[in-house]
């Protein structure tokens, strides 16, 4: 399946994300999920970014709200806007999962 996963938390309380498999997987970091794209805890990338085969996106509005810009974002992650999220949902993926 082609699945777009939305992560809106920094500390997560479920392990669904780690277990999920998809032929095509998009991970959209929104809300406090944006910290996965900009914070290197203990000098390391967030474990979220190590999900194999996934494409990573971060919502620019939610970056800016929290004091970050595209310049702070991990090179694995693409900065996008609300219109891009609409396109990901409607065109690039078939299903969504807001974890």
């Amino acid at each position, binding site marked *: 399946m082609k699945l777009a996963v939305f992560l*809106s938390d920094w500390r997560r309380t479920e392990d669904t994300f780690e277990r999920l498999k998809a032929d095509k997987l998009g991970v959209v970091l929104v809300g406090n999920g944006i910290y996965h794209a900009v914070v290197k805890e203990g000098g390391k990338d967030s474990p979220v970014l190590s999900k194999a085969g996934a494409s990573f996106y971060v919502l620019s*509005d939610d970056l800016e709200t929290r004091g970050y810009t595209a310049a702070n974002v991990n090179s694995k992650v693409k900065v996008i806007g609300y219109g891009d999220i*609409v*396109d990901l*949902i409607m065109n690039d993926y078939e*299903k*969504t999962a807001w974890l």
Partner: protein
Amino acid sequence: MGELTLGVFPSLVGSMSLDFAFKLAEAGMAKGHKVNMWLSGNAVMMAKKGQKAFKDYSHNEKKMKELIGKGMEITVCEACAEARGYHKEDTPEGMKRASMDWYLAKTVKTDRLLHIGGE
């Protein structure tokens, strides 16, 4: 153009997730998609008109009205609203109240569903 249904659920009051849903709905409609929104759990806070627009708090009533004017269907869970003391006369203009089956029925024809049910 497609149809996108947003299910917006609890624990969103005071967070920015309700704001997210309205901004996404706006972007979807700007691209010509039909957008439906279901508000349940704590997200039914939108079903109380006359909310004062303090700068310290998210205030989505104005955007919601605009989107309704442009054709967004928005329905609120009737039981979730009543349990919080939001009655029919509290409902903002253009917002519908229905049972949960309204949302279930929407999942049949909609092209995509984004169900924001998490914490």
